[in-house]
């Protein structure tokens, strides 16, 4: 019978704890917003890097063309 008796823990600052939980909820929402913005920036960065990579490939091709033109001069 003694084992089945319910045991309770007294919490004095109940209202304060609830307020802190609400604050934590707000902070979590703000953190989620910031993460979302960081993700957007990362996507923009990826797009810029991809464009840059393509530009570099163009430059490489042009260098190859110049090299070919200079190494194989046409007969006069």
């Amino acid at each position, binding site marked *: 019978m003694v084992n089945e008796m*319910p*045991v*309770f*823990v*007294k*919490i*004095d600052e*109940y*209202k304060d704890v*609830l307020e802190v939980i609400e604050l934590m909820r707000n902070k979590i929402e703000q953190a989620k917003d910031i993460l979302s913005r960081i993700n957007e920036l990362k996507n923009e960065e990826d797009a810029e890097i991809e464009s840059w990579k393509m530009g570099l490939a163009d*430059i490489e091709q042009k260098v190859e063309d*110049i090299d070919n033109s200079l190494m194989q001069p046409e007969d006069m």
Partner: protein
Amino acid sequence: MGLFSKKSRNVELELPPPPPPISDEESNNFEMPPLPRAAAKQKMPFELNLEEFEKELPPVPDLEELKSNMPSLKELGKNEIQRLEFPEIKEEESDEQMSAGPIEDLETDKESNQEEEEQPRREITEGPIYLNVGSYKDVIENINSIKNKVKESEDYMQRLNEVKNAKDKYFEQLRVKLEDLQRKSLYIDKSLFEVK
């Protein structure tokens, strides 16, 4: 005349694109939705017997007989038609506008009402509360878990910072390489096209 000559031409329109091909399985399994009339017929709770319904209706009066009994407009004369008099509506003298109050945002009100319905209202008491030991243990475990997750988040932040520093370093190297590339291209340009 030249303006209207183009109108007589027959304009040939392009044929629309053919419908997408349907496989045999799709054509076998395809079921047309029921027609609205057929659906309405299916939903009719009773059938109307027109013959019985007509018996209940009063007999149709003879129109010729009605016309002969009615006096003509000329016989009535204009004076017999009474003119209706409407009361004049007086304008309000006061210029003060009545305020209907702020416009309520119905959608937000609905959402807030739904939230209130979904979450049972908790009464927040000022004094202490007594929590079951089982629930208390759960709370403590959750707090420990939150602490660990916050610590993990700090680690993630540190790793991201390291990644960012490494990226900055690579960007600097890339900038130097591009500057070098630019200088070399200028040199080639100068060497090939300089007139001596």
